[in-house]
């Protein structure tokens, strides 16, 4: 394969994997607290449309991204209230988030469907000095935009937080055994609230990034396109570890982009739809293989994932 075509494809994979990585990191933090939020797609969509509306109104990229993060957080807060305080079924609540988020963002976005973003608000490329001149690697990794680099920093911070700090330890305790954490004097529900909302912030930012850097205009059908659901699978795929989630996101990004690359290269033996199925089927195979080898438990699934904690009923 031509060297520059490969570099181009890999760079595109990194860019395509970035929103996935952000959403997966958000979901990972939430799930580490024992809360399963299937509403990633809804939070991303609402984040995206809010970002678009604010960017169109103010022209400010930073404000728009903040608004997207806030929208994601608001939906996540609804999920937290339902599943933590009101003890609703987390699976159903998450899906309710998808439906409500999709409906609301389509409704809000209807008047601007297909309208392009004001050019000033787009997130531009921001190549890193020195590093961008590295042979091959420079073109793949260091000629990207700010959010791509911020994602690396964020991954490092989340890994550090989870495994090297006391609040991170508390978080993991709450996800593994809320009753024990409670007996230790940790405020289980407060910790769950904070990390569910933090996860929502990241999902909102993922949606914001899609609008600011990835897609040319707001469109309900083409903005997230199921990325939210891949992100949920990615967390399992990464066995709840941040760095693996980042690398996994880039692999999925490659699978998403390989489609276009192969078509551009004139490979038509495999239909585009089947190439697009690959990431989903791959994840299912990995999941089955993991459970067949009984690695899942040791691989890091929080023990109390998806279960409400009620002190009186433990």
């Amino acid at each position: 394969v031509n060297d520059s075509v490969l570099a181009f494809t890999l760079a595109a994979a990194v860019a395509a994997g970035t929103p996935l990585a952000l959403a997966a990191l958000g979901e990972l933090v939430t799930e580490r607290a024992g809360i399963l939020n299937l509403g990633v797609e809804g939070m991303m969509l609402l984040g995206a449309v809010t970002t678009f509306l604010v960017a169109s109104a103010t022209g400010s990229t930073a404000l728009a991204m903040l608004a997207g993060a806030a929208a994601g957080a608001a939906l996540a807060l609804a999920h937290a209230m339902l599943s933590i305080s009101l003890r609703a079924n987390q699976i159903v609540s998450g899906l309710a988030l998808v439906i409500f988020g999709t409906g609301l963002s389509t409704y809000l976005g209807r008047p601007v469907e297909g309208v392009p973003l004001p050019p000033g608000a787009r997130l531009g490329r921001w190549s890193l000095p020195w590093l961008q001149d590295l042979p091959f690697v420079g073109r793949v990794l260091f000629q990207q935009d700010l959010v791509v680099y911020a994602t690396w920093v964020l991954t490092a911070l989340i890994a550090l937080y989870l495994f090297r700090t006391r609040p991170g330890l508390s978080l993991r305790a709450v996800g593994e055994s809320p009753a024990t954490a409670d007996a230790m004097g940790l405020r289980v529900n407060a910790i769950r609230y904070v990390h569910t909302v933090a996860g929502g912030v990241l999902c909102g930012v993922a949606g914001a990034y899609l609008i600011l850097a990835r897609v040319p205009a707001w469109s309900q059908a083409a903005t997230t396109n199921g990325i939210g659901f891949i992100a949920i699978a990615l967390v399992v795929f990464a066995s709840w570890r941040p760095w693996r989630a980042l690398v996994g996101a880039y692999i999925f990004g490659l699978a998403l982009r390989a489609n276009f690359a192969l078509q551009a290269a004139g490979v038509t033996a495999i239909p585009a739809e089947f190439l697009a199925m690959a990431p989903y089927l791959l994840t299912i195979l990995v999941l089955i293989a993991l459970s067949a080898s009984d690695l899942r438990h040791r691989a890091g699934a929080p023990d109390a994932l998806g279960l409400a904690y009620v002190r009186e009923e433990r």
Partner: protein
Amino acid sequence: VSAPTRDRPPAAPAAGGAARRPRRLALEPRQEVSRAVLVAVPVLAVLLALTVSALFLRLTGHDPLTVYRVMVRASFASRFGIADTLVSATPLILTGLAALVSFRVKLWNIGAEGQLYLGAVAAAGVALLVGERLPTSVNVVLMIVAGALGGMIWIAIPALARAWLRTNEIITTLLLNSVALLFINWLIFGSRSIWRDPDSGQFPQGHRIPAAAEFPRFGTTRVHLGLLVALLAALVIWFVLTRTRFGFRMRVLGDSEDAARYAGVPVRGMVLAVLLLSGALAGIAGAAEVGGLSRRLDPASLAIGLGYAGIIVAALARLNPGGVVLVAVLLGGVRNAGTALQSLPDRVPMEVAVMLEGAILLFALGSEVLVRYRIRWPWERPPDDDGGEAT
């Protein structure tokens, strides 16, 4: 480690801990639920959802009362409105039942969406292959069986993996939805399959099924045989759940897998059977949509979230087959009204319906807590305030 926290004594299990706990809002489980609560809670949820949606409507410059009036008129106030509501409710009853049977045993089939597509593919395939040469009655039966099989095939791998390897079925069934959507898109847009209309060049669409394979409709309405099938399915599921050994085993398994194992319930077999049943119901929904409504494999009219909505229907119905029928008709009405809104002079987007559906679900879920628990206000004296633990 035991840093004191703001709202609880440092050593919780110590004697007298419960008595010293500050009074605050708390929930206590209800022993029995009165009929008034059962009715009042869902009504309250719908009212709250309408209020929140009204806020968004007002913010975007529409009059909420007009919008709601149009929705009620479109879906529940005329003969044809009610008929169309029932048409929308038909697949929701079936996908609601699909979610119901799996959720009853704490298996989470989130893949009714994909199973419905595959049921539609199988039913349309049978109709296109043999429909012309057979009478309608045989066709209908064949299509329903094919639909059920299609749904079962689509859930087979997650079901087998769940039964034997304990692979998380939430993620596998969820991911297969996306695969199923790509698959039907390929059948219509990406290939020269028998499902694609050979005469549609520029804008590919599904091949119309032969007239003999169309589900009969009632009178001049669009209500079709699928509604009867759905109601019959609800009745059968109710019977199975309450009157058969299979239903009893489902209940035991739903309460506790360990208990079921000790009681001699074949757990693997039950897990497999329940998930296959769930897939079959979703598949039948797809068959009914093809046979009764779109009359071709049409990705655009199939992929409207019927499977996901079924999960909502089942949850709002508290996993009760009769409730599923009622909730499906209500949600069917909301969905059906979406189209009527566009005829309003200020062109209210039809997505109001989806937004409302989501809002109703969120509030219904939240208010469900009032059915299971009663609120103990901070000024109320808890019944066991200084008993039990304090000794």
